[in-house]
């Protein structure tokens, strides 16, 4: 086998170009004084890294980073800035020297350590040659799903993904415990507490164009979320990305039609219920597998073996279709969709809904 020597092709050149852009945005984020500009540059930073993931053949990761990085985390950061009322930063050079030295020192050590890593793109690197190769070869006859990443995420590593779904659910509970569910703000706003800007809304802006386009777009985004969910095995996509896209559709509705209308449409109780339902659905599939005699999340036992053998082209009767795996992956991806979408919506309600308390803040020291 010829000794692998990395050489420049278009993929590598575009990769270096994007990394240069990332470094430029990083310098801008470090130097900027206004917190709002930092949030905006953070959106651009996650956008460039999403494109960089696309260039390096990571379609699912690019999907998640594009949707999560630009959409949801910008909304949370803006909500937090609104609630903490800090918009400009004070910078003293004294507290720049020591962190700078520490980071440069750590960077030099990491550079030295990076010299032992395999060359960029080397197929015979231990990770790519043995472990990665196993999953590329075994997916067809174990799970029978074209998208290897979804197969590993949902079937080989199903238990870990259950853990991650519960982590997202726990994050939602944590935010709800600290910021409430946003219902308190939906009470009638006493005039004293109304922030002056609300009056400015009354006559000057009427945003007709924005409202009509939003009315058109919101159902399309929600529909696209389900498309991403159900074609998760064939192309790039899956439960996580679909959940966040659905949450972004609800956030767009809240941004344009006001949180009150959105809470009428999707009440916080519904969001709480669906978050729990998703985790229940996911672990329920595991229990069904155990009832049918398999391990906790072994979807080959999703259906009783006699029933699955009877299905057309099933791998038990000579074909190569893993019906249990297909349906198992779809159902748990649906569970992940419910949990992630409901948790992101509940978190947005918590951040956006809490503004009214702070407006009248002066009560607590």
């Amino acid at each position, binding site marked *: 086998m010829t000794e692998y020597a990395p050489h420049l092709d278009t993929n590598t050149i575009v990769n270096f170009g994007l990394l240069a852009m990332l470094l430029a945005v990083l310098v801008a984020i470090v130097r900027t004084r206004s917190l709002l500009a930092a949030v905006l540059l953070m959106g651009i930073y996650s956008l460039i890294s999403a494109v960089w993931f696309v260039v390096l053949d990571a379609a699912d990761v690019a999907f998640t980073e594009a949707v999560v990085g630009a959409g949801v985390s910008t909304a949370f950061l803006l909500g937090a800035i609104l609630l903490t009322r800090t918009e400009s930063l004070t910078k003293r050079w004294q507290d720049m020297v020591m962190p700078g030295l520490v980071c440069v020192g750590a960077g030099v050590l990491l550079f030295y350590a990076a010299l032992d890593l395999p060359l960029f793109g080397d197929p015979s690197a231990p990770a790519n040659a043995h472990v990665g190769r196993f999953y590329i070869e075994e997916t067809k006859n174990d799970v029978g799903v074209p998208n290897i990443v979804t197969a590993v995420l949902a079937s080989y590593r199903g238990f870990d993904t259950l853990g991650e779904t519960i982590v997202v659910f726990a994050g939602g509970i944590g935010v709800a415990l600290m910021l409430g569910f946003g219902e308190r703000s939906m009470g009638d706003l006493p005039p004293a507490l109304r922030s002056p800007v609300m009056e*400015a809304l009354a006559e*000057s*802006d009427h*945003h007709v*164009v*924005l409202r009509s*386009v939003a009315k*058109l*777009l919101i159902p*399309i985004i929600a529909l696209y979320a389900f498309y991403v969910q159900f074609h998760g095995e064939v192309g790039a996509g899956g439960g996580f990305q679909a959940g966040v896209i659905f949450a972004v559709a609800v956030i767009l509705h809240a941004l344009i039609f006001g949180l009150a209308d959105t809470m009428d449409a999707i009440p916080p109780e519904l969001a709480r219920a669906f978050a729990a339902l998703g985790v229940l659905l996911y672990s329920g599939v595991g229990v069904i597998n155990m009832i049918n005699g398999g391990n906790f999340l072994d979807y080959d036992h999703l259906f009783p073996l006699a029933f699955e053998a009877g299905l057309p082209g099933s791998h038990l009767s000579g074909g190569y279709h893993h019906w249990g795996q297909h349906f198992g992956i779809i159902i748990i991806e649906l569970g992940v969709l419910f949990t992630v979408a409901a948790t992101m919506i509940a978190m947005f309600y918590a951040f956006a809904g809490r503004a009214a308390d702070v407006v009248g803040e002066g009560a607590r020291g």
Partner: protein
Amino acid sequence: MADVLFWIDQLGMALALAGGILSVIGSLGVLRFPDLYTRLHAASITDTGAATLMLFGLALMAGFSQEALKLLIAWAFVMLTSPTASHALANAAWSSGQKPKLGAFSLMSGKREPAEADTASGEKGGAP
């Protein structure tokens, strides 16, 4: 038949290149124009123009396939969202009191206010 497909591919690539050049011109415009409203013009018009050229060029290369449909859907969304975002941005900037530099005028009264820029930044090239 093969050379027809070849020429369609070449036409598609040429359209994509034209779209790329148009977006570079648009970005140059965004950099060089004096105030927000002219930059909005430069950005949103060339965005939709470059999107149309490029996505149709790629759809030509994709032929009758699922990719071509996805390209057209992406084109439809860009045409729907980019002008709306620019409109909302202009509306927000205008109502927050950011006056255009060249020849500011007031909507309601219809008469021409002296351009704020003449007094504020003291530029010599005042409104005609």
